[in-house]
């Protein structure tokens, strides 16, 4: 994957498939600690200890269309090659949390990339799931909570052109403000 935002899109799709009602995605850059932390946490079906022990293995997948599952291994590789760490915890019936820590200034860290597209895609194509997205750099941050959006919109769909455009602008403008010129 050429950017971390694509890993996030890919791994968050697992939460959608796990029938999570709320998927929390946190992207947190800490310039003092020199880390970029990504946490994807869902309240979906979770994994059995047996599944959990094999999920980082590229030759394990629950799908039947092919024999490999590279989503989690790719994400882990991206974190580890930047001098970071990777962890998955899961409980059956409760949900799964994936935590990837990257070395922020490490030369081998992929750029974060287009988070606006990732979150916009997740939110508008998975209207049955709620998303809570937090993006922060040090003490500056913004949040997108689809539960809040839904409450305001009543029955209006996220795929209506005006709403979809609003979500895109909300993400990109607020990220820009948090970045203050910094490119993660």
């Amino acid at each position: 994957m050429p950017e971390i935002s694509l890993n996030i899109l890919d791994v968050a799709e697992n939460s959608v498939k796990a029938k999570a009602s709320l998927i929390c995605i946190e992207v947190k850059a800490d310039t003092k600690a020199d880390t970029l932390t990504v946490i994807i946490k869902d309240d979906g079906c979770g994994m059995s200890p047996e599944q959990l022990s094999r999920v980082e293995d590229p030759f394990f997948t629950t799908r039947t269309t092919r024999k490999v599952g590279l989503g989690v291994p790719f994400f882990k590789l991206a974190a580890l090659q930047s001098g970071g760490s990777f962890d998955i915890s899961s409980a059956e019936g409760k949900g799964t949390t994936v935590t990837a820590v990257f070395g922020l200034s490490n030369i081998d860290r992929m750029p974060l990339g287009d988070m606006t597209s990732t979150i916009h895609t997740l939110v508008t194509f998975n209207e049955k799931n709620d998303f809570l997205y937090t993006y922060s750099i040090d003490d500056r941050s913004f949040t997108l909570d689809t539960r809040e959006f839904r409450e305001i919109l009543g029955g209006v769909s996220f795929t209506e052109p005006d709403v979809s455009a609003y979500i895109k602008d909300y993400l990109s403008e607020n990220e820009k403000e948090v970045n203050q010129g910094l490119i993660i």
Partner: protein
Amino acid sequence: MKTLEELKAIRDKMQGQVGLRAEDSDQTRVVVGMATCGIASGARPVLTTLSDLVQENKLEGVFVTQTGCIGLCQYEPIVEIFAPGKEKVTYVKMTPEKAKEVYDKHLVGGQIVTEYTLPKKLG
């Protein structure tokens, strides 16, 4: 900061405008493969290009959606078009530019863009 006030304004503008949608079975479904293989080969901009075009032009009876791995990872990004009563059309190795062309020629014009479809022997 972009505020939620703007979202309220959009809702107020939209209320009463939300028409009934056609039944799913009468719609043409445009399906983009968004598993690891698709995402890694560039499916995200293909998906956004197609859905933006359909939404912006308010193209009736077309519904863009995503799916997991179709099983032909080497041909990703893949776009499948299911029109009611017609055979499925599979476009392979898509890009946003090719997607725009498929939108104009196939979804709007009704002509299959055969140069981007899956080679026959594999279909």
